[in-house]
Structures are given as structure tokens and as C-alpha cells.
């Protein structure tokens, strides 16, 4: 019973850390997709005195990914129906050029304002409309959700890390005499840490395996039958093969850090 409890005290916080890491990965993938959709759906309007192409806009600001000219005849369609052909031609001549500008990535409002300012520096550009209000509200909501989730995951990982180190200290205390004697007889750090590494690594592998099983279940069984559209459509976001490598590397890294912190903390003079 004591043996099982000792190992669970390590496996459970390690699972919480790995759960946090994998949730972060899933969330990151989901938000990257959403960010791409927001970015693709967003465009600025630039009104110019002369015809311009994407390269010219890019020269003014590298954040601009593409530009497309809005057909002027489309703009005056409604008012041109009762006008003569010559009048329409005169109106078209008098009108400036309209462009929708798309951005390279999803950026915040400050960056949008900077882009606007850099465009307006050109004397060829008369006006830039950013449609900031609608963009800003979406951006704020999205950033808030992203921030809260990351903070939650961060604290979950931090608290669990303390629990892992605490358990390592208990093991360190249990093996203190052996570690001290080995040090007195000249054993290098790796040999002294050997026993802790064996115990911690085996538990870390168990924790990783359980998390892999959990996320595989979410992806291959739960997502399909959840009835949630976004889950059904994006179930591959829930778990990917590279996650196994990331989880394994994370658990091994945590084990290395915590074992060394415990073993180096044991002084050979301590009783």
C-alpha cells in the first residue's frame, strides 16, 4: 500500500504536468487555426491616388501579404444607373483607387495602427480604413480566452512541479545514506543519482503512457461521438504523433531536473 502511495504521489502530479502540456498543445493548434481564419477574414481598405501593386504596399509595410483592387464600377453601380455613359466615365476618372489589404499574420490593434501610419506616410495613399472596432473586439475576446487558459495551464504545471520535487525530496531522504556513502567513496553524480533516476523514470513513463491513452481516446473515440461539430471536424488537433515525443521529452526533462536538484542538495556531512 505504502509502495503504491509513494509512486502515485509522483505519477499523479507528473500526469497533471503532462496534461497541462498536452492541453497547451491542443489549444495552441486550435487557436492557430482560429487565428488563421480571423487573419484571412480581415482586410484593411486603402484609398490611393494612383494604381498600386502588392509589392509597392509591401515596401511601405512588410506585414501586408496581398492587395487586391476593388473595381470602381462596382462601387458606383447603384448611382450610375440613371447617369449617362459620359457622366459615369467622368465619375470613374474622378474617383481614387480602392484596395483591400490582407496581413501576413494576426496582429494586435497597436500593430494595425502602426501599419496604417506607415501606409499614410506615402503621398500616394489618401486614406486607410482599418475597421478597427470590429477587429478589436474579436481580438480582445480571443486574447483574453487565450491568456486565461495559458495562465491556468502555467499554474497547474507549476503546482504539479512542486509536488514532483516534493516527492523527489522524500525519495532523496530515503536514499540519503546511500548517496552520501557513495559520494564519500568517489562515485560520480550519475552513479549516485542512479537509483532515483530508475524510480522516477519508470513512473514518468507510466504517467506519459496514461496521458497518451487519454488523448488517444479523446481523438479516436470521444471526438467522433461527441456531437460537437468543431471536435468532429478537427479531431486530429486533439492528438498527434509528435505529442508523444513532446510528452516523453518533457517528462524525462522534469525527471532530470528534479533528480539532480535533490541529489546535489544532499551534502555528505548531513546526518
Amino acid at each position: 500500500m505504502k509502495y503504491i502511495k509513494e509512486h502515485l504521489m509522483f505519477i499523479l502530479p507528473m500526469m497533471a504536468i503532462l496534461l497541462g502540456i498536452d492541453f497547451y498543445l491542443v489549444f495552441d493548434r486550435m487557436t492557430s487555426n482560429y487565428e488563421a481564419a480571423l487573419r484571412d477574414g480581415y482586410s484593411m481598405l486603402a484609398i490611393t491616388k494612383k494604381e498600386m501593386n502588392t509589392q509597392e504596399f509591401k515596401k511601405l509595410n512588410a506585414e501586408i501579404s496581398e492587395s487586391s483592387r476593388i473595381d470602381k464600377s462596382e462601387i458606383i453601380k447603384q448611382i450610375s444607373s440613371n447617369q449617362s455613359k459620359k457622366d459615369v466615365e467622368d465619375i470613374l476618372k474622378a474617383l481614387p483607387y480602392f484596395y483591400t489589404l490582407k496581413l501576413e499574420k494576426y496582429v494586435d490593434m497597436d500593430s494595425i495602427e502602426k501599419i496604417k501610419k506607415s501606409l499614410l506616410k506615402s503621398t500616394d495613399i489618401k486614406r486607410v480604413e482599418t475597421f478597427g472596432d470590429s477587429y478589436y473586439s474579436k481580438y480582445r475576446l480571443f486574447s483574453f480566452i487565450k491568456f486565461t487558459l495559458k495562465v491556468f495551464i502555467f499554474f497547474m504545471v507549476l503546482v504539479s512541479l512542486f509536488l514532483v520535487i516534493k516527492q523527489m525530496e522524500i525519495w532523496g531522504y530515503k536514499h540519503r545514506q546511500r548517496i552520501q556513502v557513495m559520494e564519500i567513496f568517489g562515485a560520480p553524480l550519475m552513479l549516485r543519482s542512479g537509483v532515483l533516476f530508475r524510480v522516477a523514470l519508470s513512473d514518468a513513463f507510466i504517467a506519459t503512457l496514461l496521458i497518451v491513452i487519454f488523448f488517444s481516446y479523446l481523438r479516436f473515440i470521444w471526438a467522433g461521438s461527441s456531437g460537437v461539430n468543431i471536435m468532429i471536424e478537427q479531431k486530429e488537433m486533439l492528438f498527434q504523433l509528435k505529442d508523444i515525443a513532446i510528452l516523453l521529452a518533457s517528462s524525462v526533462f522534469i525527471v532530470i531536473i528534479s533528480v539532480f536538484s535533490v541529489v546535489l542538495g544532499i551534502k555528505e556531512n548531513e546526518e
Partner: protein
Amino acid sequence: MANVIHAENLSLSYDEGKKKIIQNAKFSVKRGEFVFITGRSGSGKSTLLKSFYGNLQPTDGSLMVGGLEMKAIPRKKLQELRTHIGIIFQDYKLINEWNVAKNVVLPLMIAGFSLDVQKTQAQRLLKHVKLSEHANRFPLELSGGEQQRVGVARALAKTPLIILADEPTGNLDDYSSGVIWDLLENACSQLETTVLVVTHKIPTVFSLPYRHFTIEDGGVYEIH
């Protein structure tokens, strides 16, 4: 013969120099010598012994052990030096979760000897200290005298350059003490190992020639 230990104006202290234990000590010990270090309780005998295996570094002066300066000795060099030193403690310092055979071959394990060599050596060493039948028992199942014999066997495992013994018979009866002294005498005479023993009392029956250092008021003096 070459000096195995050489101290020149050696000072040792605790609490970052605030508590001075040994001051301006000057002495040398040659290969194959047997040295007793005596002194009153708290005089600094064990402190001096600790400095020989780098558990405490000199605050002043110089201390050479096995040709290495112990002041600010790098960790790696200290580890290497310790593999040539056999240490025996009054409280044995055996690893209680390991059986006797495994305890004995700890220095061989650290040096990276194969399991076969370790097994053979464990048998030889345990036969030497007359504990062959206890190979698979655990330290806490043995008497104090038997545990100390395991400690001696461990110290001898890698034929060390130096054996340091801190009150090796302090907790033992006369018979067990006699066995330990015999083992240390043999190590010194047959293996040419330098043996330094911290003790309250020099044994009355001792066949080897020996040197006697005493510590008084922080000074190390040789008694002729």
C-alpha cells in the same frame, strides 16, 4: 619513500574560518606507514582525517594527498582521489538496503569493474574478514563487530593507497577490536597501504612499527 600526505602550515576551520580547529600544522606521512592520531574529544582528530579525503578543505596553508593539493581541489579530481582511499567509520556507514557482498564491492562498482569481478572480489574480501557465510545478509542483521569488518573489507576492496579510519573500534568489544587491528596491520604490511587511524587509545598489542601524532590546542605534534 614518497610522501603520501604532506601538510605545510595547514589550518582547518568551520563556519567560514570563524571556528579554528587546526592551526599551522606541519607533517608528512610516507607510503606504507601506520599512523595513530590521538587527542582529547573535540581536539580536531576527526576534522583532520576529514581533510584527508576532501570532506573539509584547508582554510590556510597547503595539504597534499596522493600528490594533489586539497585546497580548492576540483570536484572531478577529488572523486578520482577518493577512489584510491579506503575509509572506515566508527558508525560503519554501510548501506542498509544492500547486502553485505554488495556493500563490500562498492568501490569496485564505482570504478566500473564488471559484475563477475565484483562477485569474485566480494568472495575473496569476505573470506579475508571471515564473513563468507554472511554475504547475503543485510548490515542490520550483523553485530557491530561484524559490521565493522564489512567496513574494513569495503575499505580494502580496491587495494587503496591510503586507509583512513575514524575510531574504527570505538563501538566494539575487545575481541572485535583485536580483529579490526589485525586486519589494518595486515593491510599496511602486506599491501604497503598507508593507514591513518584516529583513536582515543592506541591498542596495547600491536606488532607493527607506527608513528603517533597527537593534537593539542590546534597543533599537530609527533610523539617519538
